[in-house]
């Protein structure tokens, strides 16, 4: 089995139905690309295609309004983030799950596999080596999905922004819904970000498929 091909994520070989694909290695036989080209290819942003939900195609228009409301309320009450810590912010994220702050009160429980996750909390510095994995994880999550960029590093590179192996913000590769400032953000700030995301889900309930 090839080891390198697995783009370094759980589930390693899984390809998703998501529209873009991650080029991990140049095909054998082709001319070896320079580092810059490889990097540009790896860091190409994810294309988001809006889909239309099944219930919108099936239900008559009159019923769609309450259906929207119920579904959006259910979604906002059961946001399952992926357990996905990158750096220092992950410690504060864990502290938020723990007994002092307890995100479970909001119905937020972490799940290990991206397939069961709704929201991705990018907690920490995204380096260019890690970026393809982050992108793949995002693509492995089923729709509808949201991204919270936690902390200065995920937002724009933070204190490390000038080092050229660091991505200057995770929004370069995946779309971000809520930015939480801080280095690292306090648990209260993260909770505030999650509540902001809940409000956003309620406000945008018509748009999301």
């Amino acid at each position, binding site marked *: 089995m090839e080891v390198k091909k697995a783009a370094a994520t759980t589930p390693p070989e899984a390809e998703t139905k998501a529209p873009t694909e991650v080029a991990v*290695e140049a095909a054998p036989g082709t001319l070896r690309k*320079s*580092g*810059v080209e*490889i*990097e540009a290819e790896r860091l190409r942003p994810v294309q988001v295609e809006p889909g239309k939900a099944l219930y919108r195609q099936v239900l008559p228009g009159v019923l769609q309004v309450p259906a929207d409301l119920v579904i959006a309320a259910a979604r906002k009450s059961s946001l399952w983030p992926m357990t996905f810590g990158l750096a220092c912010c992950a410690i504060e994220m864990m502290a938020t799950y723990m007994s002092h702050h307890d995100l479970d009160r909001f119905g937020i429980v972490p799940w290990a596999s991206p397939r069961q996750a709704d929201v991705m909390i990018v907690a920490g510095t995204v380096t*260019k*080596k890690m970026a393809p994995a982050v992108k793949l994880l995002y693509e492995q999550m089923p729709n509808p999905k949201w991204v919270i960029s936690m902390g200065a590093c995920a937002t*724009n590179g933070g204190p490390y*922004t*000038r*080092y*050229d*192996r*660091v991505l*200057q913000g995770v929004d370069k590769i995946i779309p971000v819904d809520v930015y939480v400032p801080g280095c690292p953000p306090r648990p209260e700030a993260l909770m505030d970000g999650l509540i902001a995301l809940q409000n956003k889900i309620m406000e945008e309930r018509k748009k999301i498929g």
Partner: protein
Amino acid sequence: MSPEELQEAPVVPPPAGSVADLFVAVLPDVEFQATQGALDVILTVDRGDVVRILRAARDDPRLDFKYLRCLSGVDHMEAGLEVVYHLYSYTHKHNVTIKTRLPQDDPSVPSVTSIWKGANWHEREAAEMFGIFFEGHPNLVPLLLPEDMTDHHPLRKDSPLAEIEEWQAERAGLAAGETGEAEE
């Protein structure tokens, strides 16, 4: 800081009875320059002697440096690259720092992985960060950087910091592309 402002540390001979004397006793035929650093004695050796000295340092019971604390590379620009070995002995409780200079155009030095297994990752790191070639290293592939993007060595002095993105630079009052010396 411009290259002209750089000052080299003065050479202070270590006090009598220090580790340097032990090295003289163990290896009488090897030349080195001894300096007293802020904490430890620093020996500067020729790169051809590195393996011999370090092997003696580890195996000779008078020295007994079983513990390789750290292995670092330093870029001295025109003066060449430098590999620094920090050693410690658990039995005699003494320290020593051994340095060797390599020219910029041929930065290669024998590997010490055969002496300490712990040198493995340190050497790989120095190799990718400074472009130093460690002869005889079993697996000298990049460790921290992606394996297929080895165009440049980030910790060398000629490797610039990344440009701040335009919108960030505008807010910070910097012109885009200004690096390094901007806030001096």
